């Protein structure tokens, strides 16, 4: 077994299996709650458990393929999927994933495996920190604007700016009800694919891109992103599977948690105010970013770019792990809190109704019947 596992696949213990399932559950719940991703928690989570970066990304993107298939079917029933938009983005998305996989292969291929692994981990961590910091800070800014009454929602500066150029051909996406330049769509598809292939969090780029760059509504953005994720996921799964990086055990363990979590998260969205959803999302991403940031010195030390005592590495790793779990557990606890609160509220109402309090009478009605 060790011969095959080597440095690429970890040995699966009960403890690791349960932790991966937990990651899947929290990731699924976050994914259901905030409409995209979940991977931002699962990918670094697996890396913290000792899974090599590219195997974590490969296993996660393969898991995402199956998850997106189930999720997009549900969204399509609700009319939230703009297939045309998704297909346009999928074309360049596939190129983006291919580019990402090639780059990571290039980085992990040369030199010894240990060094290659650290190089890939450093690269993933940096991209992760830069991109998701921007996303979470923009979201926080929007939340502050909304709370102070200065904004009506996410900024549309980019939409307004791009619409001035009128870059032909302009495509009309009927379900999303937007007109966007083909070039803008293709570029966003490429970026989404590239980031999905690099850090496994395409949704966190694809959904804001659709909202901020194309001006699509949040529900259609989430539905179309899931539809797109099927293609990106399928292509990513094929690409990484061809490179022999997919760990099917991790995929199955992630499924076992996420496919339950996603339903609970989706239920949470029905009972929580939209601004809280955005706030929880931004908070979780920021904590994840911090978690990755804390680990960067370790990778730099392993690559010889930082003169640091290697005995400190476990502490950095521990801090990173703590932050990551704090983000997931905080997010998960908040969602569960809202879900349970709604559940008990429902029970309370049912009880008050069955104990004979009528909610109908002439004129004003008492509070208890409401």
């Amino acid at each position, binding site marked *: 077994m060790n011969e095959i596992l080597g440095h690429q696949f970890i040995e*699966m213990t009960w403890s690791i299996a349960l932790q991966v399932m937990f990651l899947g559950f929290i990731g699924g719940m976050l994914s259901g709650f905030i409409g995209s991703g979940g991977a931002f928690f699962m990918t670094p989570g697996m890396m913290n458990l000792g899974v090599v970066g590219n195997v974590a990304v490969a296993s996660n993107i393969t898991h995402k393929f199956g998850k997106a298939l189930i999720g997009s079917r549900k969204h399509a029933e609700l009319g939230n999927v703009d297939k045309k938009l998704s297909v346009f983005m999928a074309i360049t998305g596939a190129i983006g994933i291919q580019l990402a996989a090639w780059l990571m292969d290039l980085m992990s291929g040369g030199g010894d495996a240990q060094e290659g692994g650290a190089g890939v981990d450093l690269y993933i961590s940096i991209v992760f920190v830069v991109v998701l910091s921007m996303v979470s800070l923009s979201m926080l800014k929007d939340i502050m604007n909304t709370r102070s009454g200065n904004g*009506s929602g996410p900024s549309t500066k980019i*939409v307004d700016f791009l619409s001035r150029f009128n870059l032909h051909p302009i495509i009309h996406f009927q379900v999303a009800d937007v007109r966007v330049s083909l070039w803008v769509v293709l570029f966003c598809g490429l970026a989404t694919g590239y980031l999905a292939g690099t850090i496994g969090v395409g949704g966190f780029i694809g959904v804001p891109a659709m*909202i901020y760059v194309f001006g699509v509504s949040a529900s259609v953005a989430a539905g179309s992103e899931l539809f797109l994720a099927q293609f990106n996921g399928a292509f990513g799964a094929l690409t990484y*599977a061809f490179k022999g990086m997919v760990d099917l055990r991790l995929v*199955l363990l992630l499924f076992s948690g996420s496919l339950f979590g996603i*339903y609970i998260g989706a239920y949470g969205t029905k009972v929580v105010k*939209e601004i809280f959803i955005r706030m929880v999302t931004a908070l979780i991403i920021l904590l994840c970013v911090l978690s990755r940031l804390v680990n960067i010195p370790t990778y730099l030390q392993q690559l010889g770019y930082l003169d640091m005592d290697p005995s400190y590495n476990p502490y950095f790793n521990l801090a990173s792990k703590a932050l990551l779990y704090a983000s997931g557990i905080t997010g998960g606890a908040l969602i569960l809190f809202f879900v349970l609160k709604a559940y008990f509220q429902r029970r309370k109402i049912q009880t008050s109704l069955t104990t004979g309090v009528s909610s109908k009478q002439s004129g004003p009605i008492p509070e208890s019947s409401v």
Partner: protein
Amino acid sequence: MQIICVSRGSFGYGNELAVKLAQKLGYDCIARETLTDGATDRGIPVGKIESAVLKRHPITEALALQMELMKAFICEQICGRALEKSVVYHGRTGHLVLPGISHVLRIRAIANDEERIKMTLRRMPNLTREKAKRYNDQVDEDRRRWVRTLYNADWEDPSLYDVTINFLNMTAENSASALVSIAQLPEFKATPASMQAVQDRLLASRCRLAIGRDDRTREIGVTVKADHGNVAVTYLPRQSKEAAFIPEVLGKIDGIQSIVCTVATTNILYIQESFDPDAPSLEQVIQVAEKWNASIELIRLLEGKGAAAPEAVTAPAAASSGRAADGGILDDASPALSHEGHPDGVAKTFDKLIQVGRANTVRTIPGGAQKLLSSLNRSEQNSLVVVGDVFLAREMSVRKRMRRDLISFLADHLKIPVISTEDLKGQYLFGTKQWLHMALCAVATVAVYLAVFYNQEAVLQFTSAPGTGRRVLSAALVALFVPIVAWIYGSFSHYVLKLIKLE
């Protein structure tokens, strides 16, 4: 009193037509701009709403509330005026402001592109012809977006209009003359029952505005409906605390007979010709509503012209509740009516819904699928349509076919699942079939997991084996294996959560 709504585009003579028509008929003419100015004066940020919709800003909860208030204000103004004097209203969404009121004449005014460009150039002489054309296209696009966002409808859908006037070959003056004759047709004359519907809309709008105006309830997203003074309010579970003040807030409004407040995140439309409170299908609909935290709207669909107006059958409620018996045209074949004005079964079914906390409202709509569709407010939050026994006067096989056609028709036009009562249990509730399916999925899931984890070494060897041929095979099998497992395990988890009513 008559209501005529003219839906107009930019520079399309719509204003002119509306003004001339109002003059010829001696009606009041109301322009959309007058109402939006009024709404702004009352603190509704119309400019902000327009900017958000037209500039494609995502609609936040706060803005959606303001949008509802704006719609309620416009509806209140038109209905209020229409109860005193006949009116001609002109605006972009004139045809959608009062859905389901039978005597509203909905007119669409269009002009050909060349004429519109000329008018644009006349008003904005600095523009080039090309820019004027682009400007008009942009305005049309904005209007499409506006209509879709506010009313979830297609601005250009001809089925939403009674008459379309094309100014290519007709002047506004002659068009108005022709429309005078149409306006006098019996189909567009107000009946006591259709006026009752206007009164109900007015009452619902006033209630909505009162809730939006009161400091204690202003942030609650509610749906308000009224039927003969009986007001139904639905609100979200998380707003229960603030919603406790709703009865007090609405208590100040005249004309309310009763208030039903239901906590619901969504709504289910339950369509039948007659309702039985003890029917198993009703129990099933209630079970689904409890799982989804939904309210249930009862729609009594009557085939043909048994009742001349949608509101007709419910009209006796007014008499029984002590208000003026303003009539309505009754179906000769109507079953016995209860003290509440609905047939006994409907009233009892509605009472049952109130007892279980799922009541929304009850309506009677005659005239088949098209009439039913046009009376539905498409911007309302409905999640499911359940079609039960309808077309009861028909022979069994014809009835089945017609019901199937009705389900297909509604499914084609509404973006929500439409299902028969027979299929409801299979799809949304838990029965033997679901237990069996869940067990099969569980067994298949366990088998797959055991197979992989008892053969970890072989699996990893296979997926990471060198050689192009092996890699291609491995990739193809992974791509096939993953969706199958996702489907099997996804179905299992879905059934488990369905079982514990967490959907």
